[in-house]
């Protein structure tokens, strides 16, 4: 049983994944983990990573972005099957839009991946979140695989999905996956009116989203591998906004149309040289409407359109058993159109060139890279932010000091920046074209220790990382000469000191009973260090000192039981660290039971989930209430 489980894990993990030996801290959720975490979107699952805050605007359709080690969402890059998902307009990717239905694994690196044959873009962020789509998998002798599922639950949720995988030839397979999320999104929450709490129904939080995805993957005669993937997402949703006194939701609406096609081709020419080519075309349409705007036409409507073209070539050179190097070059073209008055219509060319080197001997590994970023922007109206060139280095080491102990020590330093987004530079009234990049320096020292036992208690893993981050020239909006006119500026420093702790393990409690558990805890101080600033040495907003998560999963024969928790400590909603800006801590518990079996030739699975079982009334973002206790049931058949 034990050996079986380990094997399975090994298969589902991507090839690069060697968690314990990684020089940069890495956390991984496999398909099995994802099934255990009461999650339907990527944003639900990543809450369980240590050092991560998901900025959740509440409800099934509310925006959800990732904030790693308090560096803010713009410093994490998100990759879908190796290719970046960008939003050049505001740098924010809403992870609530990414369903887990088609996701095989989620991996978070502080810093970057520690393999070398990756695009230059993969070196360009403070943190890296990797989403891997489900790979075609066929049972012995079969050329197809179907999966049909439906999920229903509170908020009027109806969520059917369908997966079809087909072997087209010996080395080529087709995947088709579609999913519909329909929910009225309504839920009750308590609004505190002084000493009286009033039950309010949150409205205009409905979602109607359809995702269609198709992929062709294969291997050519020369053993090179390739994939072409089409992705189309269409949605309409309510934007209920902040729930403020006497005004608990707004009637704003948003429509999204996201389409991309991406492809990759990887070839190992010989023992010395390998090549990886990536490309993507992406188009994002967003329509926003405020039906209550008090102008003569009676509403406000804005349309935004983004386009991205991406090309990348990565080259790996294996000089010897101990020495490797890589050279990657990426090009992005981004354009934003909007029907705003006097809009600048910016376009940006980005060239990224990265050189990396790795040396390893015995139980020691060192990696270093240097990334050069060249940006050039043009506008149709007004001034452009012009060009920029920035060099960003990083270095990391991993060391296994004892041959007979699974102890790995790691450390890294990474310097990186985020460029101003199109909104930062060109947004009506507040945008500023004279912004500098926002720089981040990260220092990390940690270890992983694994111990296997010849007993019921099979293995345990401890992970500890201490880190120090510095943000310089933070891009932020402030009023300049007077309070009439705000503008984006580079202002302020932040220093973040923290410790991430993780313990996980598994045990075989009986012949048919297996138990997995994991606990993560983060202690951090993210302080404003702006010289002469009004908030010097105060906590930055939404950076709790304490946060953590945990889960226990028990499998007995065909039954599974899972209990998981999330905790976020006290934090502030605005910069002044005063009582009225303090937000209460919250502790959420979720529970799920599953049953899976075979009926004739079909595998089926039934899952019942209860979320926030203690019915805690809480908010992640101030005035954006989160749902109380809610239930979901799902049913899945695969053939």
């Amino acid at each position: 049983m034990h050996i079986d489980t380990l094997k399975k894990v090994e298969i589902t993990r991507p090839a690069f994944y060697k968690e314990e030996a990684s020089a940069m801290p890495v956390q991984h959720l496999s398909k099995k983990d994802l099934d255990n975490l009461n999650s339907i979107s990527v944003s639900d699952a990543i809450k369980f990573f240590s050092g991560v805050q998901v900025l959740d605007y509440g409800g099934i359709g509310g925006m959800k972005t990732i904030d790693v080690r308090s560096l803010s969402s713009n410093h994490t890059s998100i990759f879908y099957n190796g290719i970046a998902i960008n939003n050049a307009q505001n740098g924010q990717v809403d992870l609530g839009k990414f369903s887990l239905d088609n996701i095989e694994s989620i991996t978070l690196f502080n810093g970057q991946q520690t393999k070398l044959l990756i695009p230059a873009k993969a070196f360009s962020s403070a943190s890296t979140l990797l989403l891997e789509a489900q790979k075609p998998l066929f049972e012995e002798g079969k050329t197809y695989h179907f999966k049909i599922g439906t999920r229903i639950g509170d908020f009027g949720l109806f969520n059917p999905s369908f997966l079809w995988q087909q072997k087209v030839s010996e080395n080529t397979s087709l995947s088709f996956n579609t999913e519909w999320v329909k929910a009225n999104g309504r839920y009750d929450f308590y609004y505190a009116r002084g000493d009286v709490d009033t039950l309010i129904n949150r409205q205009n939080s409905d979602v109607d989203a359809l995702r269609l995805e198709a992929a062709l993957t294969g291997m050519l005669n020369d053993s090179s591998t390739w994939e072409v993937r089409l992705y189309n997402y269409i949605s309409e949703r309510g934007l209920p906004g902040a729930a403020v006194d006497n005004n608990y939701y707004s009637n704003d609406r948003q429509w999204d149309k996201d389409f991309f096609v991406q492809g990759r081709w990887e070839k190992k020419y010989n023992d010395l040289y390998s090549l990886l080519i990536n490309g993507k075309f992406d188009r994002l349409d967003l329509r926003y409407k405020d039906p209550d705007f008090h102008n003569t036409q009676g509403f406000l409507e804005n349309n935004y359109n983004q386009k991205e073209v991406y090309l990348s070539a990565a080259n790996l050179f294996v000089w010897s058993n101990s020495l490797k190097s890589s050279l990657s070059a990426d090009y992005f073209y981004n354009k934003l159109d909007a029907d705003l008055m006097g809009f600048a219509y910016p376009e940006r060319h980005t060239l990224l060139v990265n050189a990396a080197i790795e040396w390893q001997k015995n139980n020691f590994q060192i990696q270093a890279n240097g990334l050069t970023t060249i940006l050039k922007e043009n506008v149709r109206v007004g001034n452009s932010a012009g060009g920029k060139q920035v060099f960003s280095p990083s270095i990391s080491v991993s060391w296994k000091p004892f041959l007979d102990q699974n102890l790995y020590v790691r450390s890294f330093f990474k310097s990186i920046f985020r460029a101003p987004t199109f909104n930062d530079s060109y947004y009506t009234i507040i945008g500023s074209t004279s912004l500098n990049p926002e720089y981040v320096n990260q220092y990390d020292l940690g270890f992983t220790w694994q111990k296997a036992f010849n007993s019921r208690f099979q293995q345990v893993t401890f992970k500890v990382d201490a880190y120090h981050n510095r943000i310089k020239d933070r891009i932020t909006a402030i009023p300049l000469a007077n309070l009439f006119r705000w503008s984006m500026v580079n202002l302020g420093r932040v220093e973040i000191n923290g410790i991430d702790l993780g313990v996980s393990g598994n045990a075989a409690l009986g012949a048919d009973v297996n138990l997995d558990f994991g606990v993560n805890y983060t202690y951090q101080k993210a302080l404003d260090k702006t010289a002469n600033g009004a908030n010097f040495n105060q906590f930055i907003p939404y950076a709790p000192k304490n946060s953590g998560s945990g889960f226990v999963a028990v499998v007995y024969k065909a039954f599974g039981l899972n209990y998981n928790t999330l905790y976020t400590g006290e934090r502030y909603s605005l910069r002044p660290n005063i009582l009225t800006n303090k937000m209460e801590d919250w502790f959420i518990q979720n529970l799920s039971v599953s049953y899976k079996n075979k009926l004739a030739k079909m595998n089926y699975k039934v899952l019942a989930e209860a979320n926030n079982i203690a019915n805690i009334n809480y908010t992640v973002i101030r005035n954006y209430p989160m749902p109380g206790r809610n239930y979901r049931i799902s049913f899945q058949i695969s053939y």
Partner: protein
Amino acid sequence: MKINFKISRLATFMLLSAFLASCSKDKPFTPEEQLDPISGVYVLNEGDFRANNASLSYIDFLTENITLDIYGTANSSDPTKPKALGDLANDMGIYGSLLYVVVNESNKIEILNASNAKIVKTINVDQPRSIAFHSGKAFITSYKNNVFVLDTLSKTVIAEIPVGRTPEQIVASGNRLYVANAGWADANTGGEYDNTVSVIDPVLLKEESKITVAGNIDQVFADGKGKVYVNSSDIYDASWSTIVEPSRLYRIDTKTNKVDKEYEFGAHLMAFTQNEAYLVSSNYKAGDETLLEMDLATETLKESDIFKGIELDHIYGLAIDSDNGNIWLSDAQYSQLGKVRRYNKKLNKVDLTYTAGAFPSTFAFKR
């Protein structure tokens, strides 16, 4: 995605001080002939947009103590759970024994007992901005392009008067009310600014006429002597990079309802004594906010030095205590709580400084 138009809206000047300072023939309604002395001042903290953190502070003149959240504590039996005033409190005024607080994003007017800030009644008004009083009625501008009329005895809305587009401030002068029609909601969505001031008859409850002044009129002030000052805010070019029509101050003679004077600068805050006006201008001197003193008789103008040594870049509220001519000024600093300062006329210095709530804007003197 919505541009935050409201975040930097200026709050109105406190009307009542102008009323009470003026001579009796301009006073349409006086609750009591023999006025008690002013015993303290309410300070309305506008709050951050969408943060639901507007608050009401009170400074008692006898103890010189500030109660930071008097609304929250007066209306909750549990002091650890103060009641929230709401989102963006733009204006307030005392009329009779009641304090009326205008809370824009919370779509309401809170009617409070002026002696203890306890709620008397809450009235729903869509997107209210500014309040003025006349003949036993409260007149409230709303972004619905209306002025809501609230009967102060029955405390119910008795009429809605259509005015210009995106009305901002309202002021009473003589037997009329004057409404600044800004029209920025249209201007920001491809249309034109409004360029008028509406004149309202408080008895017939209708718009009597419109005075054409300039685009984007935001503020209106009454000197209590028959003159109404109106201020236009900056108008930018299509790309929002250059000011094409800078903020300007205009004077309306209420006898003729015509503009009788135009100034070469704007003033977004004004307060009056018997003989003088104090003004805050953002373009009298380039790049600086300036506090100005104007002699109402001679019309001579000079920079005021009464707050010298104090950074004045974020003046957010200005009012004058009619009992003694003391000048109250609030200062809304970004990312910190606002400051309230008093210039003591007798001592000729700033003698009191308080930390209030977020974006302190409006003062109301309590008798």
